């Protein structure tokens, strides 16, 4: 085959949309994906719904969601930090996203098919992100896009305002299946898989039959042979996602605490191209130390755990750090941003680990979780399982329960427990300064930090705990682009033949905060745009 006119780097939603649209516009397209075929699709495999602007309700969405409201939502979420022109572009072009996906073979879930979370602003992918990714690969291949798995692009060479060349490294059998032959990607996976360096995780023993066994590894016999080639395509679209899979880079910007983070998304997101291009003079957007984190079970696999590892029951229980101390109000946030809040908080906990504590009654109320909780008949037993100081935990627990009874008192069955004075003094009050006199005459310590209700005392054994860590979803650091999706130099000049789409350029629109369903939309809209522009550039 003749060399490709357009090289697309990365096969998530952004890369696939770019490849398809460039191919439809007549260009010869090569798409390289660093993952092996079975893990193709990056973070896009894990998504489910995307936000789009619509003036009418439809089978996909129950009500309308117009441009003004979308604009306001985004401005509020990002505190107005996004680029205004690109935001307008995103919102206008998001109207066509469902149609474009449907026409490309992606199935969307109609609202009367299965129970969906209520959402008037987003449409749902039938079968989720993996189904979408599969459909887009099939479409790309039907159109004649050349797809290579286990193939990593790196070492972009800039000359003035042009990308002169880029290197591809692939394992010898880059075809359809097998191990990612790429050293850095698989190296990262391997390193993470050992997980020995992650504090606290080894102390969490699970009953053997409940452990999710890892699948047998790929046959190790065929040591991947690396081949390297230098390509000089007319145009390149970068759609290689964020850098959440690169521990070194994370450590450099966020410190040692990243050791305690878990990557929910693909391990392939090593951000190499981003780093290399920034070093070569491309303009950065966003903040490398800002991360989108949610609370996940500390026992989750080191990468690719996806949507199911979240811990969501904070409003039903009490959260403590590894020393047994409460640090935040468990009941304060209820919106969809609450998961992200807890992710951020856990990042600041000592050892980046926290525990959601529940009693038997609360355990029945919390949303289902992937791993069974640690359970013990009493607090001491639970503290032992966690490896926590039992006395400290008990102190926190008693203080919390006492406060719950006096604020939300529902324990009429055992009125004696209302009297704090029956408890040993040291167990009740964390510090003397918090002691004051309650109107009814009993001594009462306002809980610090406070606890927003509804909540109640956790006093029905057995007691349970979910260990939690911050789960990294994506990073807020990327390449600045113009309204034609061209990557910009720090001089402000665009690189004529280099385009970026998806998470890699998302911080142009969303340098902080988040709206659910936004990232897939950015991937779709800027993927299509970058593909069109790249093809246009090729045609000259």
């Amino acid at each position, binding site marked *: 085959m003749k060399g490709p006119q357009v090289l697309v780097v990365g096969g998530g939603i952004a890369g696939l949309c770019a490849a398809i649209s460039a191919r439809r516009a007549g260009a010869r397209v090569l798409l390289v994906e660093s993952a092996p075929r079975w893990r193709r699709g990056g973070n896009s495999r894990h998504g*489910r719904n995307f936000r789009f602007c619509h003036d009418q309700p439809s089978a996909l969405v129950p009500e309308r969601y117009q441009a003004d409201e979308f604009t306001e939502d985004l401005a509020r979420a990002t505190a107005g930090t996004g680029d205004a022109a690109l935001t307008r572009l995103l919102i206008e072009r998001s109207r066509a996203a469902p149609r474009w996906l449907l026409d490309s073979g992606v199935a969307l879930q109609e609202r009367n098919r*299965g129970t969906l979370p209520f959402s008037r602003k987003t449409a749902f992918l039938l*079968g*989720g*992100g*993996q*189904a979408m990714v599969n459909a887009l690969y099939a479409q790309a291949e039907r159109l004649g896009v050349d797809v290579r798995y286990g193939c990593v692009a790196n070492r972009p060479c800039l000359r003035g305002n042009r990308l002169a060349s880029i290197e591809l490294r692939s394992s010898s059998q880059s075809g359809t299946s097998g191990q990612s032959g790429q050293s850095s990607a698989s190296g990262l996976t391997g390193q993470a898989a050992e997980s020995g360096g992650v504090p606290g995780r080894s102390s969490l023993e699970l009953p053997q039959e409940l452990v999710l*066994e*890892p*699948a047998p590894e790929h046959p190790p016999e065929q040591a991947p042979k690396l081949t390297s080639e230098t390509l000089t395509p007319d145009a390149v679209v970068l759609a290689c996602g964020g850098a959440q899979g690169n521990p070194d880079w994370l450590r450099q910007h966020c410190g040692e605490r990243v050791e305690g983070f878990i990557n929910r998304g693909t391990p392939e997101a090593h951000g190499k191209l981003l780093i290399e291009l920034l070093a070569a003079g491309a303009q950065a957007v966003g903040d490398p130390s800002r991360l989108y984190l949610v609370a996940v079970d500390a026992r989750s696999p080191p990468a690719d755990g996806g949507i199911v590892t979240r811990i969501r029951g904070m409003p039903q229980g009490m959260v403590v750090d590894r020393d047994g101390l409460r640090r935040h109000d468990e009941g304060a946030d209820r919106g969809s941003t609450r998961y992200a809040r807890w992710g951020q908080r856990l990042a600041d906990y000592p050892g980046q680990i926290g525990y959601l504590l529940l009693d038997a009654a609360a355990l029945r109320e919390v949303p289902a979780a992937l791993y069974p909780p640690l359970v013990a008949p009493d607090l001491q037993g639970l503290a032992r399982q966690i490896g926590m100081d039992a006395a400290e935990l008990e102190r926190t627990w008693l203080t919390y329960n006492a406060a719950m009874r006096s604020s939300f008192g529902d324990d009429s069955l055992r009125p004696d427990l209302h009297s704090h004075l029956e408890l040993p003094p040291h167990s009740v009050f964390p510090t003397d300064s918090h002691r004051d006199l309650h109107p009814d005459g009993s001594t009462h310590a306002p809980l610090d930090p406070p606890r927003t209700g509804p909540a109640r005392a956790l006093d029905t054994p057995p007691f349970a705990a979910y260990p939690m860590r911050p789960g990294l979803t994506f990073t807020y650091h990327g390449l600045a682009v113009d309204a034609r999706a061209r990557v910009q130099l720090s001089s402000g000049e665009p690189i004529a033949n280099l385009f970026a789409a998806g998470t890699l350029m998302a911080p142009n629109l969303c340098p902080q905060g988040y709206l659910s369903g936004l990232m897939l939309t950015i991937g779709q809209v800027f993927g299509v745009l970058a593909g069109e522009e790249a093809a246009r550039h090729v045609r000259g």
Partner: protein
Amino acid sequence: MSAAEPVVEGAAVDASAAATEAQRILAICNICGYCNGFCPVFDAARERPAPHRGDLSYLAHLCHACRNCLESCQYAPPHAFGVNVPRTLERLRWLDYADYVWPKPLARLMRAGMVLGSKADFALFLKLFLAMIVPLLMGFWWLPWSQLTQPALGPGGFYRIVPFPLMVCLGVATLGWALLSIGVSLVRFWRAIGGGRPAVRLTWSGLSAVLWDLASLRHLDGGGAGCTDSHSPLAPARRWLHQLLVLGFLCCFAATVVAAFWHHVLERVAPYPIGSLPVVLGLVGGLLMLASALGLWWLRRRTNPLALAPERKGGEISATLWLLAVVLSGLALLVWRGTSAMGLLLLAHLGFVYGFFLLLPASKFVHAGYRLLAVLRLRLEQRNIDADTSRRG
């Protein structure tokens, strides 16, 4: 046990391990829920967060093995979570056929179907297949060669070989046995899947809605996208082939009913002319079954083997072979009934038909009943919910 672990063909499948694996996987699906637009299994599983044996049976038979949820799963093997819903539920279905079957000894036969690879069970199978051609051998024994090799030209030609009353008696007896055995098994299944669930009201409208669901394969369209027949493209081929197979079966059944009517009421005695209704129905039915059975077999060979439970292979092959034996012998009889081979062909065809009925309760074809009841339960539960919510306003 992880779903990624290959099951050795011929190895016995441990029922409790299969149930544990199903519970593990469904627990993951209950949190994820991405697939709930494909079919009703996922919403039903969420309503049963701690599924017992009957719940698992219900969910297993609610699945019609479109395989979409394997292809779309971000946790499919070789991912560490190893989620493989189609294989796990298919495994449960086969275990269920053996579990609920009545009388119990048939369970051995059903399991034999699952583990065709092992020697002992293969021998058992061989014997059964031989049993199917017993009538043929008996004919040899009893009938003089000259009578056996007479072509069936005039009316009553068939009955010179096998007297009419005997033909009918054997037919009624074997079919009756099949219906009784399957009926009892299904009652046991129905009780099990209702265990611990709110009672449902069985109504005619509910029943007819279900029959329509089944005829139109309502739940079989993969949420609109079709089934994953082969590795990736979603296609409607499997649904069509399956329905053609059922249609073919119904045609053959209709042919028998029409023939009986002609015999008793119109007093026209078989064999009937080529263009006559019973013959046309039988011919069309036979050809439909032949074509669709081969089509399904071809599709299965192209299906991602990861989606299939390896141990079901024996049961599937044997069911296909039995069906083909009936169909091919019937077609052969039609083609060569004017020749001296007629007698042998008739005996063979009848033997296969009776044998088919005898083995029916231990064959894959029982899945129709299980599935019907699972969909019935789904419909009735939904109606109960609808009725409750409308009453509440």
